[in-house]
């Protein structure tokens, strides 16, 4: 991979230097070039990379190198700290409706991102924690979308509310709320159809759903393999519909997952969960710090530095 060797490259850049104690502008610039490349190879958005690199440069130039660290390690430490500052360092929890009424989550995102699978995973997870979930089939467009939700619902023994594909999503959602309250469901998860962020009609459908149903959280589902366009998608979903949290899927692949950083940077919304496989149990709490070192591809180096 292009930057398994990021730390090696750092070593090379700083090897020729004596321990000057201070970082020169030229050294830092050379190191930042490598960081920039690494982030771009990891699919972090170009503009986000630019801002990031400038922030690190500013901090690093002229900085005193600590006794225990070589200049290379010192810069890596700064890079990592800035990265964690951007990604956020704490895990972020889901919020629940308190006092009366069920908690409603609405899943939104591009086609094929993993909304239906993640709806089921989330319902399964919260069922284990004592909730009584209801899954709602609001995707009336994709062939067999309803059936898909029914199959995964059945695998988890979680009921699925559907009205076929001849009713509008808004009417299905309204009826689902009624059904949910009659049957004492305290958690309702709406699976919606995949859509493009630039598809006005389809985005309007979500706007209306949100206005009427008032979900506690609107969760944007994002494929971890997304490239430069991730910022654009996240920005528009957030602007038009309003996003409360993000779920990053397909992290069981070998992508660096730079989209995570891009989405966080443009929306400032927390990434709450990570999809780690196709099985319905493959949903994990998202740890921003781990993601930071995954994107940089230098988890090992960081452990070493922490020990130093």
């Amino acid at each position, binding site marked *: 991979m292009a930057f398994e060797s990021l730390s090696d490259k750092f070593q090379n850049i700083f090897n020729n230097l004596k321990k000057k104690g201070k970082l020169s502008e030229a050294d830092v610039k050379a190191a930042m070039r490598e960081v920039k490349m690494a982030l771009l190879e*990891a699919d972090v958005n170009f503009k986000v990379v630019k801002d990031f690199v400038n922030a690190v440069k500013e901090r690093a130039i002229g900085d005193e190198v600590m006794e225990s660290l070589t200049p290379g390690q010192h810069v890596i430490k700064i890079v990592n700290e800035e990265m964690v500052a951007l990604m956020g360092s704490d895990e972020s929890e889901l919020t629940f409706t308190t006092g009366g009424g069920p908690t409603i989550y609405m899943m939104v995102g591009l086609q094929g991102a993993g909304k239906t699978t993640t709806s089921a995973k989330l319902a399964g997870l919260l069922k284990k924690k004592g909730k009584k979930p209801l899954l709602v089939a609001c995707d009336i467009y994709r062939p*067999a979308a309803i059936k898909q939700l029914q199959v995964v619902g059945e695998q988890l023994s979680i009921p699925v509310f559907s009205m076929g594909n001849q009713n509008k999503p808004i009417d299905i959602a309204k009826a689902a709320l009624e059904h949910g309250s009659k049957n004492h469901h305290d958690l309702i998860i709406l699976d919606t159809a995949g859509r493009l962020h630039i598809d006005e009609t389809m985005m309007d459908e979500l706007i209306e759903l949100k206005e009427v149903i008032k979900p506690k959280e609107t969760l944007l589902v994002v494929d971890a393999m997304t490239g430069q366009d991730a910022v654009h998608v996240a920005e528009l979903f957030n602007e038009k519909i309003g996003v409360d949290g993000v779920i990053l899927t397909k992290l069981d692949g070998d992508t660096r997952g730079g989209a995570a950083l891009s989405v966080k940077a443009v929306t400032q919304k927390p990434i709450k969960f990570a999809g780690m496989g196709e099985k319905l149990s493959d949903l994990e709490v998202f740890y921003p710090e781990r993601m930071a070192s995954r994107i940089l591809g230098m988890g090992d180096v960081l452990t070493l530095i922490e020990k130093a």
Partner: protein
Amino acid sequence: TKTRDNILGGVDQVLSGFSSIDEDFYEELEEALIMADFGVHTALRILSDIKVKVKEQHIKDPMEVKNLLKEELMEIMHLSDDAYIFEEKKSVILIIGVNGVGKTTTIGKLAMRYKAQGKKVVLAAADTFRAAAIEQLTEWSNRANVDIVAGQANSDPGAVVYDAVFAAKARKADMLICDTAGRLHNKKNLMDELGKINKIIDREYPEAHKEVLLVLDSTTGQNALQQAKQFKEVANITGIVLTKLDGTAKGGIAIAIQSELNLSVKFIGVGEGIDDLQDFNPEEFVEALFKQ
């Protein structure tokens, strides 16, 4: 047909802001290519080619650089003359790719295309794993009005392909199109399973031309290169389908894949409808990269 009007800033925007060719100009151009998902490596390689040509040809006008760049990209994405020859033969098309990229939908579109050409088409529902994948393909077979061979959910996908080959022969099909489950390229057991499916086709249907299409989501970043490399290991990929080009992603990764792995895009997906599949046109693709 739909056009791909992107609202992102394109190369054109960059070019129009410059009156002379300098380092800033090249830097902006590099940025535009990277924003289109070319990847750093490919973007830099292409730009260094361009720089040499600009010098050699004593070019002074930034707009002329545009033409050079276009020519270069069109050259890279050029399709060989026999790219679509399988459409005139008795063929089996194996559709592969990672999860959610648009495999099943593409099969629906291809089925419609060949049906409209008066061909006998059979579909094989060899994704037996994903929830309701069989029902999804069945719906597409109804829309296109073509035959489908399917087994039980969670049954052996190899067995489905085996049965489908048998059916294709018996019904004298012109086109057999096989759906497969989405799988990430780093999952060894799933890739092995795909290798097996591939071998079954070779063994049972040697008389058919074999076309293996890797489906890539144009929204995908640099990981698509990894996908193409790994899938190439288990099946002899003969072309790429680049889907979701009706969005705002430019699909520049296809250029990296073509130049590094020599795999050509043959079809593009431009929507969720049955007619939203087009032959790949290098000129239109490159033109769209430049548009804002």
